[in-house]
C-alpha cells in the first residue's frame, strides 16, 4: 500500500500540483461548500453555541492540565469493568501491542472502525507485516484502501474522489478483497453505498477481532464513545469476540456529564447533523452482549511532547470534527494530500509538526500553509486558536529554541532555508526602528519609480507570476504631510 507519508515534499510544492488538478479542485470545492452551509445552519439552531464551545474548551483544557490523574482514573475504571489497559509511548509500541493481542486470538484478519489514531501509527501496514489482514469498513476508508490511496480528510478520507471515481474503484478492486461489486454498478451514491454494504457484510459476520479508536473516554466511568454514521462501527464494536481500541491519551474527559457538551457540538460541527445516526458507548465488557475481551491501548506518540508546549498544547483539545478543513480556503485548493499527514487542513498544520517535530521538510513547511484568515478558529467547537499556534510554530521553525521530543527536552536549531528571510527581517527591523532610514528608502523608491517593472525576476516571481505590482507613487505620504502639513498648505 502507498498509504505512507515518508519523504513527502514541502507543502507549497505538493499544493502546486493540486491547484492545477481541475478534477480535484472541483471535487473539493463541491464537497466543502456543501458541508459549509449545512454546518452553519446546524450550529445556528443552538442559541447557546458560544456557551457550549466555551464549556468544551474548558473541559478539555482542565483535563489536559491534569492528564496524569485522569489517565490513572481511566485505567482503574476500565479495569474494574472487565477491560485491560495497555500503554504505548509511540507508534511501534502500539503496533506491537495490537499485533500481539490479535495473534493471541489465533486470528489472521480484523475488521476496523475508522480511526485516526490507528492511521497515524500505520497499524494496517504493521499488521500486514505480521501476516494479519486489516479490513477498513468505513465507506470512505474502504474507498481509500481499495484505491491504494491515501486519506485526504479527517472525516471523509476519500473526499478527493467524486462518485464516478468511486464507482470505478469499486468495480475494479472489490473482487480482489472479497465480494465483487454488482454488475452494472452506476455512480448513484445510494448504489455505491449498497455495494459497500454487500461487500463488507460477510466480513462483519465472520469477524472475530474488531479494532477501533474512540472519540471520548470518560474517566469517572471508564466508558468509551464512538460516534459514527454507517453502522460499521456498531458491527465492529459488537459482533467480534475481541475488541481492541487504540485511543490517544488526549481523548479523555473527566465525567459522564461532559458528554452533554461534545455530543451536541461534535455532530453539528462534523457532518452538520443534529445527531449522527449511531453513537456507541461501552464500559468494559458486558456479560452475554458484545465482545468478551476488551483491550484499551492508550497512545502517546508525540502527544506528551505537544502537551509540554504551553502555546501548542491547545491542539490536543481537538475532537477531530473537521470543521476547520471544510471552511479552510487553503485546504479547499491544496487538498488533503499536500499536508503529508493523516491530519490534513488547519488542524493538521498545527498537529503534525508537534506530534512529529519540525525536522522534516514537510513538517517545517506546514506552519506556513495558511493565510492566517482565522476561519478555522471561528468554527472550531473547542476554540483552538489555530492561527496563534501556526505563528508559534513558525517561530520554532525560523528561530529554533526549546522543545520536547520523545519526552526529552531539546534545543532546536533554526531550520535551514530561512537565512535570507531572517536577514531581511532583521534589516527591516533595523530600518523600522529608524524612521530616517525608512524615509530614505521610500524616497529612493519614488525617485526611481519610472524604472520599476510590473513583474519581478528571481524570488520576486513568486509574487509577480500571478499578480502585477502596484505602481510606486511620486512621493510617500510622509513627504506630502511634511510639505503641506496635512493638506493645510495645499492650494485646494
Amino acid at each position, binding site marked *: 500500500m502507498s498509504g505512507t507519508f515518508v519523504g513527502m515534499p514541502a507543502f507549497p510544492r505538493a499544493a502546486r500540483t493540486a491547484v492545477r488538478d481541475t478534477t480535484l479542485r472541483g471535487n473539493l470545492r*463541491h*464537497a*466543502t461548500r*456543501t458541508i459549509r452551509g449545512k454546518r452553519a445552519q446546524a450550529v445556528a*439552531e443552538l442559541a*447557546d453555541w458560544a456557551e*457550549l464551545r466555551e*464549556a468544551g474548551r*474548558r*473541559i478539555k483544557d*482542565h483535563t489536559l*492540565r*491534569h*492528564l*496524569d490523574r485522569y*489517565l*490513572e482514573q481511566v485505567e482503574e475504571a476500565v479495569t474494574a469493568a472487565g477491560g485491560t489497559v*495497555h*500503554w504505548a*509511548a509511540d507508534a511501534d509500541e502500539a503496533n506491537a501491542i495490537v499485533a500481539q493481542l490479535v495473534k493471541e486470538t489465533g486470528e489472521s484478519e480484523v475488521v476496523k472502525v475508522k480511526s485516526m489514531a490507528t492511521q497515524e501509527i500505520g497499524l494496517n501496514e504493521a499488521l500486514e507485516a505480521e501476516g494479519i489482514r486489516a479490513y477498513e469498513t468505513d465507506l470512505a476508508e474502504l474507498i481509500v484502501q481499495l484505491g491504494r490511496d491515501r486519506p485526504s480528510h479527517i*472525516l*471523509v478520507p476519500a*473526499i478527493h474522489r467524486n*462518485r464516478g471515481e468511486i464507482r470505478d474503484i469499486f468495480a475494479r478492486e472489490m473482487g480482489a478483497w472479497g465480494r465483487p461489486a454488482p454488475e452494472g454498478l452506476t455512480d448513484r451514491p*445510494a448504489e455505491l*453505498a449498497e455495494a459497500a*454494504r454487500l461487500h463488507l457484510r460477510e466480513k*462483519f459476520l*465472520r469477524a472475530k477481532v474488531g479494532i477501533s479508536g474512540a472519540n471520548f473516554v470518560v474517566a469517572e*466511568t471508564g466508558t468509551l464513545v464512538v460516534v459514527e*454514521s*454507517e*453502522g*460499521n462501527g456498531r*458491527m465492529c*464494536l*459488537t*459482533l467480534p469476540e475481541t475488541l481492541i481500541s487504540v485511543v490517544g491519551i488526549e481523548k479523555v474527559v473527566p*465525567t*459522564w*456529564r461532559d458528554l*452533554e457538551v461534545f*455530543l*451536541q457540538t461534535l455532530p453539528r460541527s462534523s*457532518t452538520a447533523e*443534529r*445527531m449522527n*445516526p*449511531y*453513537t*456507541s*458507548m461501552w*464500559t468494559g465488557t458486558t456479560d452475554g*452482549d*458484545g465482545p468478551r475481551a476488551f483491550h484499551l491501548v492508550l497512545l*502517546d506518540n508525540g502527544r*506528551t511532547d505537544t*502537551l509540554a508546549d504551553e502555546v501548542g498544547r491547545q491542539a490536543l483539545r481537538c475532537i477531530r470534527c473537521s470543521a476547520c478543513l471544510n471552511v479552510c480556503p487553503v485546504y479547499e485548493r491544496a487538498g488533503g494530500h499536500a499536508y503529508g499527514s493523516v491530519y490534513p487542513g488547519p488542524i493538521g498544520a498545527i498537529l503534525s509538526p508537534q506530534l512529529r517535530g519540525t525536522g522534516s521538510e514537510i513538517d517545517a513547511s506546514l506552519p506556513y500553509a495558511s493565510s492566517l484568515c482565522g476561519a478555522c478558529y471561528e468554527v472550531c467547537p473547542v476554540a483552538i486558536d489555530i492561527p496563534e499556534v501556526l505563528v508559534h510554530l513558525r517561530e520554532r521553525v525560523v528561530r529554533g529554541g526549546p522543545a*520536547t521530543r520523545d*519526552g526529552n527536552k531539546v534545543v532546536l536549531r533554526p531550520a535551514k532555508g530561512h537565512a535570507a528571510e531572517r536577514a531581511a527581517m532583521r534589516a527591516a527591523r533595523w530600518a523600522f526602528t529608524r524612521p530616517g532610514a525608512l524615509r530614505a528608502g521610500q524616497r529612493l523608491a519614488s525617485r526611481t519609480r519610472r524604472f520599476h517593472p510590473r513583474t519581478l525576476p528571481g524570488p520576486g516571481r513568486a509574487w509577480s507570476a500571478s499578480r502585477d505590482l502596484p505602481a510606486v507613487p511620486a512621493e510617500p505620504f510622509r513627504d506630502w504631510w511634511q510639505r503641506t502639513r496635512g493638506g493645510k498648505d495645499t492650494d485646494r
Partner: protein
Amino acid sequence: MSGRERVLGRVRRALADVPREEVPYEQAVPRGYLREHGGRSVAETVELLAENLADYRALVHRCTDTGLPSLIAGLLRRHGSASVVVPPGLDPGWLAETEVTRVADTADGTPRALDGVDSVVTGCAVAVAETGTIVLDGSPDQGRRRITLVPDHHICVVRVPGQVVASVPQALGRLDPARPLTWISGPSATSDIELDRVEGVHGPRTLEVVLVTVR
C-alpha cells in the same frame, strides 16, 4: 521502565508549569449552556421528537397501547417480514396479532443466523426530541446490541411522553453508563460520497419508531 510509567512520567514532566493547586474540576467548567433549547409543553416536545425523527428518514407512527399489537403486525406485514427477533423481556402482547416467526435473542445465536432474520422489535430507554434520537441500553425489552443492528428492519417502540426528554443533557442524566448504550438517529447513513448524506449502509435501512400513548 513499563509503557505506563514512561507515558505517565512524560505527562507529568510536560505539565511542570501547571500549579499543583489549580481550580478544581467543578469550578473549571462554566456550564452556562442550556439544559434544553426553547420551552415546550410535554405535547410539543413529543411533536418535536416526531418531526426530527422524520427529518432523518425514520418512519414515525403513533398509536395507543391498545392499538399497538395491530400496528406492529401491520408494519411487519407491509415490510414483507417472515421473521422477527424478540428481546427476552419484550411485552408479549406487542406481538399478539402477528403470525411471523419469532426468533429469540440468545447468547449462543450467531451474527450469521441474525442476518437471516427480517425484522426486530424493541422498546427503548429514552428518546431525545431535539435531536430525533432513540437510545437503547440493553434492558430486557431491548436485548443485545446486535439484534438491532444486523436485521434490516427495526421497529422501536417509545412510550410517550414518559420516555421522551427534550435534550441531550437530559438524556444523559437518565442513562446508566455501566450499560452498553446505542444512540440511534434515523436509519444508517453516510456522508462519505461528496459530503452529501445518503441513507442505508450497514445498520437497518428501515427504522420505524412507534410513539405509543399509554392510556
